């Protein structure tokens, strides 16, 4: 059988199939709008008042649905591993000389990006942001260094140590919760609600988010470095 079609037929048939599917779905969606009901999230909002965290999304991400976050970290970890595996065998590509402005600007910008990343990471329970966003911002700082200085390379042993430390401590925090309060990832640290809004509040939540931030930052740095392909994997 020959499936080769000319481009026009392909475009029209693709258009028709996609349109048919979407119109069907859209018809149902417009017919039945979202009902006005009490959802699980509203109950969780009421509960977040008790755990001393100002950003309810953080308390959902890290605590109420913390297990999803652990899974998400695992996905990122596996993806970084896979990318390292795929792109490891190549030789270093020669790097073009980056221009003067980029070099000078990166020297000024890098500390600021890092500071901002760490701020977003640590204040995740008080303001929008948190481990993921902060980690990725830190990784983008690393990226700036990678493209502006040809001799720079992410120190593999340091990243590996950070990553291992963060991953192990996340699971261990979960297991300590299991042993202390009989719930995996349970909140076993004392948390005083009157402290809400302070940096040290919310018990185990900021702790986990910082660990997540370290893990995401190191994984993303590795991914970025592998993609720029100056990798020397083990």
């Amino acid at each position, binding site marked *: 059988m020959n499936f*080769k079609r000319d481009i026009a037929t*392909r*475009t029209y*048939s*693709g*258009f028709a*199939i*996609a*349109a048919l*599917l*979407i119109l069907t*779905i*859209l018809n149902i*969606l*417009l017919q039945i*709008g*979202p009902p006005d009901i009490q*959802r*699980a*999230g*509203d109950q*969780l*909002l*009421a509960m*977040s*008042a008790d755990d001393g965290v*100002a*950003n*309810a*999304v953080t*308390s*959902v*991400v890290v605590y109420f*649905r913390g297990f*999803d*976050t652990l*899974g*998400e970290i695992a*996905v*990122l970890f*596996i*993806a*970084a591993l*896979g*990318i390292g595996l*795929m*792109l490891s065998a*190549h030789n270093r590509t020669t790097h073009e000389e980056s221009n003067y402005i980029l070099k000078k600007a990166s020297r000024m910008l890098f500390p600021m990006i890092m500071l901002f990343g760490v701020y977003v990471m640590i204040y995740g329970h*008080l*303001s*929008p942001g948190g481990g*993921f966003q902060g980690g990725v911002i830190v990784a983008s700082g690393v990226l700036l260094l990678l493209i502006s200085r040809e001799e720079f390379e992410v120190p593999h042993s340091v990243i590996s140590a950070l990553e291992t430390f963060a991953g192990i401590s996340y699971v261990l925090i979960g297991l300590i919760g299991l042993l202390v309060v009989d719930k995996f990832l349970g909140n076993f640290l004392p948390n005083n609600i009157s402290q*809400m*809004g302070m940096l040290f509040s919310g018990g185990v939540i900021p702790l986990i988010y910082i660990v997540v931030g370290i893990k*995401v930052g190191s994984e993303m740095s590795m*991914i970025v470095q*592998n*993609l720029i392909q100056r990798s020397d994997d083990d």
Partner: protein
Amino acid sequence: MIEALFNYFNQEYVIRALVDVGSMTLFFVGFFGLLTQRHLLKIFMSISVMEIAIFLFFIGSIFNKTYTAPILGDGHTAFVTMNDPIPHAMILTAIVIGMAVFALGVSFAIEYYKLTGKTDINDINEMREK
């Protein structure tokens, strides 16, 4: 005149319809790309557009215009009249997962190109059935 237009678009059901139609049209664009494009990167791009479309649909459907973001501060001292935080947390997770899978896919594509020099999805047929 402009006032009336603004008020019209601020109505609850108009916003709902906007969200539904807008996100589904975006989904359509992605799906169309998936069916018609042939370059591997374009295919990844189309799937990413589909993902963004359903994320927008979800957040938009849950969103209540009169409520605030689920964060204390700016005069809010209690967790009432706030938007539902669970969808936000879910989308946060889904965005990161989507990016991870997508980065992996791109690395597969790069490696495949290095070995065979092909980037066209129609040419990927090392194992054509006899």
